[in-house]
């Protein structure tokens, strides 16, 4: 079913810089948050963007959503350049997002039904059909239709995240951006939400961009990954390959840092050289490698 290899989303040379102002309000320089990033997601695929805080993963999500304007590069959806239509209604019909914290992404004063109705109203879904569509969406995320009358505070974290997923699916988008969709949830709840996302993806032929710092989760959910470090993709490829044979030192450090629960997983973690008896920071490790490469000093044990 996923044999079609044509990419749904293509990111070409995407760049975003933010101006930095000094205390007097004049421009003091700029920070590069996204530094010429390129990747593509095939139709029906799950692409994982892994990275730590400050790596630029959320900025990329915001650029794709049209919440920020890129400084350079192109975003192509199903072959057509959407860089000019970012943030328009035509764009939001195709691309939707599930946010990290379901506690704050649902309006506490709206019932669940009212929250899900917002995108339906914005996209002129026939008024007479809205109620039916809302129960259909709730059913898709395995919640009873009666939840439409409830308020967010009456729901558990996992239930709220299901509502957020239903809201994202209301306009039948092609691409769903998942920004750390389960990081606020307990593991048992997380497993169920991920399972739901997987089955919805198959059922509705959705394409996911999955943003997370949880590498074990990424290993299970994404079929391709890109590892971001300071705004650049330092390594990308099929998930199994990147996790089993990480090539870039930063990827190796990331994987080596994950606390794991079995000996099989431990065997997967690459050896990282200790610097002064400590696990090195990414900068230190990369600097060490750089100096080894340039001076060709034999590897210290």
């Amino acid at each position, binding site marked *: 079913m996923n044999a079609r290899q044509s990419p749904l989303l293509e990111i070409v040379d995407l760049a975003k810089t933010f101006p930095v102002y000094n205390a007097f309000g004049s421009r003091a320089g700029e920070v590069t948050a996204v530094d010429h990033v390129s990747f593509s997601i095939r139709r029906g695929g799950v692409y994982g963007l892994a990275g*730590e*805080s400050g790596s630029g993963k959320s900025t990329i999500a915001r650029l794709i959503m049209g919440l920020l304007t890129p400084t350079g590069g192109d975003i192509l959806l199903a072959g057509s350049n959407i860089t000019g239509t970012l943030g328009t209604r035509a764009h939001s019909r195709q691309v939707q997002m599930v946010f990290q914290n379901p506690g704050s992404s649902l309006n506490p004063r709206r019932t669940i039904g009212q929250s899900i109705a917002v995108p339906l109203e914005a996209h002129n879904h026939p008024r007479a059909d809205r109620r039916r569509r809302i129960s259909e969406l709730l059913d898709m995320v395995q919640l009873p239709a009666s939840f439409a009358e409830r308020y967010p505070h009456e729901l*558990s*974290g*996992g*239930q709220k995240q299901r509502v957020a997923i239903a809201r994202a699916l209301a306009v039948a988008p092609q691409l769903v951006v998942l920004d750390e969709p389960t990081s606020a949830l*307990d*593991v*048992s*709840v*997380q*497993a*169920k939400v*991920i*399972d739901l996302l997987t089955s919805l993806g198959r059922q509705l032929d959705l394409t996911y961009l999955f943003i997370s*710092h*949880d*590498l*074990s*989760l990424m*290993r*299970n*959910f994404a079929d391709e990954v890109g590892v971001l470090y300071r705004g650049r993709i330092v390594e990308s490829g099929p*998930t*199994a390959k990147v*996790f089993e044979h990480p090539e870039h030192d930063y990827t190796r*450090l*990331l*994987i*080596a*840092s*994950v*606390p*794991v*629960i*079995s000996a*099989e*997983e431990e065997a*997967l*973690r690459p050896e990282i050289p200790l610097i002064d008896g*400590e*696990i090195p*920071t*990414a900068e230190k490790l990369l600097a060490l490698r750089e100096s080894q490469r340039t001076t060709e000093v034999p590897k210290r044990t």
Partner: protein
Amino acid sequence: MSEALLSVRDLSVEFTTYGRTQPVLRGVNLDVPARSHVALVGESGSGKTVTMKSIMGLLHMPPASISSGTIVYDGRDLLTMSRRERLKLTGTDMSMVFQDPMSSLNPVFTIADQMSTILKYADKRLGRSRSGRERMQRVLEVLAQVRMREPERVARSYPIMLSGGMRQRVLIAMALLSEPRLLIADEPGTALDVTTQAQILKLLKDLVEERGLALLMITHNLGVVRETSDYVYVMHKGVVVEEAPTADLFAAPKVDYTRSLIDAVPRLTGARPTLSVEAAP
């Protein structure tokens, strides 16, 4: 069981709000022997934080009340001793590493100010005193112990000038100020990136080993449990449902809940976790 440094027996805690009483802990038993590394693991709402707060005397009473049980530290029951006596122990001989390095530090005081204030009050409770200079010396000493490269510079800094990892190190240093024998760590490193978290966990492990401390680690992360502890208690709905040496628990969990919890954790190998947790809907 041999004499434990900390021993919680049959601890029950309930919360009363709007006239309704809700049991939160039901008969919790827990032992932390000297020099051991014990983990207390559970999902949100399992009661692990309430257990920690009961031990450290941080529960707000009311709404909370301890309906039964004893918390024996070093042979004495913390729950029956006077407040004065208890304060000589909590924050000094038994101390705490807090979770969130962003909100646990005061933004308007330097690290040195905050740490020497803590030390001053700890000394006062113990009936000791030392000069400002001696206190500063001790502050620099513990900052070096948590592997800060430039303790003087860190001491002069305000929290905002430090990275998340460095702030977490400062919180660990604070806990070490008065040479505790028991360290209670509440989800250390969860607010941090994985690479920083790995550094913090290694540091904690090295420190407790070097200094022969007992460590009680409270966490929801089973990976962290496996990496830092040799004995583990699993909590669910206010009850300790299983306890075992860490290796045994992961090799052969005896209770269904523990098994389903372990099964729900995504694996680095990509093996699909199974989904049969009866916990939350």
